[in-house]
């Protein structure tokens, strides 16, 4: 049966749906390509050991996971805060260790080894380690900027 006006599709809704999908793709692509200049300079796990020795700076390891809500709050309030990011970049070599157990079924060997070594049982966990890898301080969970700052200040 040919569609009658009773069966016409809502053009406005179709237009809105197309616009939203396009906007979603654009936002996804643009946020992927443009990392913020005001946030922490994360380096890879492999680079971190080399950089820590050459610059004689301790390592900050952020053990995190995509699905972890408090991790995103920590990221927004601390790692994306320009003043905090500047201080972290000046004092530490920052490494982000992202757990992919839930998404991929298993973590890479390097991530699993770091989680074992630093006894990471939950997220977020931030570990401060010296150039030889010895733990100098840690913060489990996220209790606000001040908690993070006090742990960071204790690592001298």
């Amino acid at each position, binding site marked *: 049966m040919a569609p009658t006006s009773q069966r016409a*599709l809502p053009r*406005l809704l179709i237009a*809105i*749906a197309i616009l939203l*999908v396009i906007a979603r793709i654009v936002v996804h692509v643009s*946020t992927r390509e443009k990392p913020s200049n005001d946030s922490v300079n994360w380096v890879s796990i492999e680079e971190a050991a080399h950089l820590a020795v050459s610059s004689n700076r301790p390592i900050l390891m952020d053990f995190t996971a995509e699905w972890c809500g408090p991790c995103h709050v920590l990221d927004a309030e601390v790692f994306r805060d320009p003043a905090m990011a500047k201080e972290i970049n000046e004092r530490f070599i920052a490494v982000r260790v992202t757990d992919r157990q839930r998404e991929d079924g298993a973590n890479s060997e390097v991530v699993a080894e770091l989680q074992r070594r630093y006894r990471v049982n939950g997220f977020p966990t931030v570990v401060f380690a010296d150039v030889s890898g010895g733990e100098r301080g840690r913060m489990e969970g996220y209790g606000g900027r001040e908690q993070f700052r006090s742990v960071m200040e204790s690592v001298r």
Partner: protein
Amino acid sequence: MFSSVVIVETIRRHVTHVAFLIYLALLVIFAVGIANVDAPPMWPTFVGLLAIITGCNVIGPEFSSGTLQLILVKPVNRATYLLSRVAGVVCVVWIAAIVAFIAEAVGHLIGGDVPLEMMATTLLNTAVSAVLTVALLTLLGSLTRAYLNVAIYVVLLMTLNIVPTLLQFAKAPASYARVFNVIEQNLYPTEPPRFDGPWLLLVLSNAAVALVIACFVFRNREVPYGAD
């Protein structure tokens, strides 16, 4: 695109229902009581549940009871009717969310401090999340009859949660689990604890696409008398 009569009637039918009023009262008690406890607010979960309860009523039960057949003999555009029903149900859920939001604010006022930014974010995320829930249930309702839509909705949610774990035990390639995870993130996205533009876009775009498909399916659906 909308029929104000259908929207108003849908809202009226819900807000004058005793069960809705009792649910609202419980929501207020929860929101006020938990406002000053050091834990995430529980009312968004109850509002999400309300979205499922009200969303599953959009088309399927009307099809089975014969109400839909009576409505569609009139010269109403099917998509307009469907979208107006969705809009009405979404409004009902939003009313509950706003009431819970106000109740939580009152609870915080009693305690002294009102974390308005966090509360507003929770309200926004819950309200947007409800749109996707209702849209998905409408899409499933346009394909099925009675309350099969809510059954499929719940079974799908459980499947998407369980299968990745089973795949992990079976030592299947990680990409298989990732597929299920991506589907889950799109259909049942976890609300972020802050304002998240890309997340809002994800939810709204998925809801809009679900409604377009629902309109398309409903347009072509045969609605004979004595269907059930």
